[in-house]
């Protein structure tokens, strides 16, 4: 046999070496290695969606989510929250007179709003101011700051970042703190009184401890230099255009003044959405016998400095207690209950479908 059998040697001198295979000499065998990796035989876990795994998963998700949802919902409902809109757009509102206040006005406009708490606030109470239709998340707004300056960097203090434009330099002096965020800092003053038999008892509002620890201690720092005199340290800078007074006069206490003023820090942490609330003051529970804020009449004194009417903004004052999961949050609880129920329901539906129509075990043939 094999008369015409002929293996042609590579007479034309083309090596049949591969593109991917290292050329190697004639000595080196070109036989591929017999490794699990190269032969695609790596041990592997091959999960399949079967009724045995999917349906229990659905039921378990349902069974976990529904109690969590109920828990959140109950917790959220136990939280006391009280909200007053003091923008003053309605003519009847006491603050209506201040509606058209502007940054330039020198005389403060004050107004007082009386309100009644139906239920007492038992634990610590947090006082917020809320703004609506205020675009703290606008791209140009968000970027308009110089974190280097706010961190106490001296060169940035005198030469703020370009991002701060047009609030970078005023009258040839660098603005400290520069930028649109700082410039538009909320500057209403809110004071709370309990009216007890026509006497106004002021309620102590704590203004420290409202900012993140990292913000207060890491991110924001006053400029450093000789001595602790902030006035001297901020020498050569000017106040933001809208501000009535410079940054080193925000507060009397040195550890709450300058860039590390907590109201300022809270403001500088820009909101994600155009409607937001920011922590303003804390009201601590004094003793265990009395609720922090007992039910009754209160009055809110507002030094109305912050104009929002021009862009249809709203201003609110919110009093709220807190739980393990923060303030009132009905959405989360309801969402959890809904999703849990849907999962459970889906589980039931799928179970029925699987029992009625599921055909994998019975009729699915493998055509050969």
């Amino acid at each position, binding site marked *: 046999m094999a008369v015409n059998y002929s293996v042609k040697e590579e007479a034309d001198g083309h090596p049949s070496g591969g593109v991917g295979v290292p050329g190697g000499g004639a000595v080196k065998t070109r036989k591929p290695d017999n490794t699990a990796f190269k032969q*695609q035989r790596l041990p592997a876990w091959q999960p399949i969606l079967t009724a045995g795994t999917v349906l229990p998963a659905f039921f378990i998700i349902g069974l976990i989510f529904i109690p969590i949802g109920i828990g959140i919902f109950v917790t959220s409902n136990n939280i006391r929250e009280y909200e007053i809109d003091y923008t003053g757009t309605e003519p009847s509102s006491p603050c209506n007179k201040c509606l058209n206040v502007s940054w330039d006005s020198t005389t403060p406009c004050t107004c007082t709003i009386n309100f009644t708490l139906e239920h007492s606030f038992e634990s610590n109470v947090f006082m917020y101011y809320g703004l609506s239709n205020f675009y703290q*998340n606008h791209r140009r707004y968000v970027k308009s700051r110089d974190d280097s300056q706010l*961190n106490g960097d001296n060169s940035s203090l005198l030469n703020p970042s370009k991002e701060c434009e047009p609030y970078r330099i005023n009258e040839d002096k660098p603005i400290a703190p520069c930028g*649109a965020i700082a410039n538009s800092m909320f500057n209403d003053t809110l004071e709370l009184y309990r009216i007890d038999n026509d006497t106004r008892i002021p309620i102590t509002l704590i203004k420290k401890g409202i900012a993140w620890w990292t913000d207060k201690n890491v991110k924001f720092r006053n400029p450093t230099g000789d001595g602790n005199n902030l006035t001297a340290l901020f020498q050569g800078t000017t106040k933001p255009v809208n501000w009535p007074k410079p940054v080193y006069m925000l507060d009397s206490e040195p550890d709450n003044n300058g860039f590390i003023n907590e109201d300022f820090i809270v403001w500088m942490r820009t909101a994600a959405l155009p409607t*937001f*609330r920011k922590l303003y003051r804390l009201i601590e529970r004094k003793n265990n016998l009395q609720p922090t804020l007992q039910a009754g009449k209160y009055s809110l004194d507002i030094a109305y400095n912050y104009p929002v009417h021009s862009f249809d903004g709203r201003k609110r004052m919110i009093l709220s207690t807190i739980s393990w999961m923060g303030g009132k949050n009905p*959405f989360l609880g309801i969402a959890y209950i809904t*999703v849990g129920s849907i999962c459970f329901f889906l589980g039931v539906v799928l179970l029925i479908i699987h029992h009625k129509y599921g055909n994998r075990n019975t009729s699915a043939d493998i055509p050969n």
Partner: protein
Amino acid sequence: MNLTVTVPNSTRSPSAGTTLPCLSRQADLLLLSSSEPHGLCYIETAELDGETNMKVRQAIPVTSELGDTSKLARFDGEVICEPPNNKLDKFGGTLYWKENKYPLSNQNMLLRGCVLRNTEWCFGLVIFAGPDTKLMQNSGRTKFKRTSIDRLMNTLVLWIFGFLVCMGVILAIGNAIWEHEVGVCFQIYLPWDEGVHSAFFSGFLSFWSYIIILNTVVPISLYVSVEVIRLGHSYFINWDKKMYCAKRRTPAEARTTTLNEELGQVEYIFSDKTGTLTQNIMVFSKCSVNGHSYGDVQDVLGHKAELGERPEPVDFSFNPLADPRFQFWDPGLLEAVKLGDPHVHEFFRLLSLCHTVMSEEKSEGELYYKAQSPDEGALVTAARNFGFVFRSRTPKTITVHELGRAITYQLLAILDFNNIRKRMSVIVRSPEGKIRLYCKGADTILLERLHPVNQDLTNVTTDHLNEYAGEGLRTLVLAYKDLEESYYKDWSERLHRAGSATEAREDRLARLYDEVEHDMMLLGATAIEDKLQQGVPETIAILTLANIKIWVLTGDKQETAVNIGYSCKMLTDDMTEVFVVTGHTVLEVREELRKAREKMMDASRSVGNGFSYQEKLSSSKLTSVLEAIAGEYALVINGHSLAHALEADMEVEFLETACACKAVICCRVTPLQKAQVVELVKKYKKAVTLAIGDGANDVSMIKTAHIGVGISGQEGIQAVLASDYSFSQFKFLQRLLLVHGRWSYLRMCKFLCYFFYKNFAFTMVHFWFGFFCGFSAQTVYDQYFITLYNIVYTSLPVLAMGVFDQDVPEQRSMEYPKLYEPGQLNLLFNKREFFICIAQGIYTSVLMFFIPYGVLADATRDDGAQLADYQSFAVTVATSLVIVVSVQIGLDTGFWTAINHFFIWGSLAAYFAILFTMHSDGLFQMFPNQFRFVGNAQNTLAQPTVWLTIALTTVVCIVPVVAFRFLKLDLKPELSDTVRYTQLVRKKQKTQHRCMRRVGRAGSRRSEPRGARRDRYGQA
């Protein structure tokens, strides 16, 4: 154009035989002289036309004397010939030399690609070189090959780009309106940028800003990742041990890395025959002598043995002249020879005498045969081993060693083989003086010319012949006839006269031959196996089951091709009909095609009920009717018919007919026709085509097809160099397609789906956020997150899936070839799937934005501070996004290797690690303006509300997907799902068995053996 060739410089003077084959690979030569007498030159043209028999070329007599270099140097002829063309079998030209004209024909040419055989050396004159050679004229243009997924991907990317512009426009309009309505009033806190004086201009600027921040939706990294995955798949092909041929020591090789997933979509395979399906080895495998069939493989007890348990081959050691490579498994034949059965002796005597083989005996006992066709060689070698050794021949004698005795026969006449006669005979005078005619030839011809006394024997032999043909063997019938001295004398005189006649010489000779080859006595029949490559029938069977249509395109003649068709089970006896198209004119071909179609349609009409047929006829064209044909048909078409069939007005007709057939064999086709056939299918069928071949004659086809596969084997390297994939055995094709191709396609599709999904889920959040930030192009995420999302957090898990994923193990894809079908139908990634992915991505992005929005809008931290500050919001959304897409890739990954685990968990870990690093004090101290998210991670992620939000988002994003997939699996499972599921069940049963056995109730409650389940399926 006339081409003039000046002589001396253009001929390298090849002195040894080895240099000329090299030269003949570069240029078309005019044969001037050779080492053989009369300037003869034997060549093999397998690389040109696939034919493996030897051909003779002859130098024109005047140049054949130019044997040595000094004479050659004085040769100064001039050749005027036709311009370069692609006709391999025609050449016309004239040699002008010494004021004489000599006509030149194809008989004088050595074409590029042919190989010298049995010729020590030859000299030639270069006529065409380089791209002008006939071979190069036959190779098509190289085209840049791209996969259909590639093209689809480009379209989709364009669409996505359009979508991006749309989003940009919407948001820009939103911005203009917002600035006009709100922004204008908000200027006390946020004045417009310098240079922006109108809301419209602001909108214009915001358009570009949005184009920039939303650009992640156009996945730039997609292209890189796709290439990486393809590279990985190519390496897997290179590394595959099961595609390594130990004999030739060649591994499979992916020569391009861009076509892998198309291997999973092949619908048509165009295969060469010689060297691809066959090994190009002829083996004497069976014979029938005097009504007794020999050659079945038998075991010790004399029963037919199963394949695989072959006994020892017959021992030929008694014969010192035997060819050691010859193997035969039936000892019966040798016994018959030894017992002196006169029929068997006569049978082998015929084989040793009736042929045109030349022998060469370099040293005593070392015989070499030079055969023009491998069939003849195989027969003569068989006779040699059985003790009838053809030793040598002169023009007048043939010397044969018959069982050790040297006998010289006088050779009186050779009645040559040709295509019309389909037989050859010799007339010899034995030493005893008897004159005998020995004849061998095709059964159809020869059986008619037998003496009537042979009737019984003929019937038995015909049965044997049918049996052999059914096995795909090439059969010949052998017969002899004793001639009277007087009759022979008369006949030879007439022959002499006819031979010297000037008119109608051929006809007269043919009539004389016809006369003498009559009333012959039947000796028997031989069956030669054109040895297939290993595993060819199995491979073809599996590929056919996988719905891949296989067309054989060969330069060989029709009988050979059909034989191979039978032996590799492409053609079977069960087929309703095999149509053979051999028409020489346009009309004939058209008529034959029309008849074939009518027959197929008649059959389907009679099978299907009339109603459905009517309906089909009214609703559609011929095509759909032909596609729904009942019964199995095959089409065999000849090269000259194909030339007509490929013409513009008939090609559709041809294609429809051919596609309705289960098997198509085109024989006697030129390389260019091969390419044209491929092109035709590509053009009208919109199917993925694969061409596989091994010779230079396949190059154009390999280049034309979507995927070209080269067999790196016997016929040189041109095919491999032009191919996209190469390996050394045809059978590897099934693994390349069904395993590697299928996986590649699956992986690529899964990869693309996920990739588009994750980018949409990621980017669209910006779009929704736009409505809440005054369309100001504020991003939702930290800039570093945006940078790293595609590169670090989500790239590796999906890459790992794209490289390693497997739905069913490799042996299953061979077991169930139907698993290949989704690729052919393009089910796993198409426009519909794309939109589903996009929809899922958008759905995820909506939840990704609005759930945190709903939760965080009024939420406060557990220390009373505001929770919904921008940075916390960004971290919450980013974290839920990373978790959701990680869970999603976990769902998509069907094959969790250690690498997948590492990448998925590693990506999550990397996310948190990088997050905490980016938000750390240290980095902020160094670059306060770059890392302004300081302290954010630990503050935000310490909040239970945030984690509850993330969990909620994840569940809401994933649950519908799981539910949907489960329903699909449960109600409409794909075959691959079923296979996976069955495997899981089997595995469980196995472990159950093991447990039960351990408990001691072995086998008492076998859950359900495989067969039983099959039965139940069957009933259902």
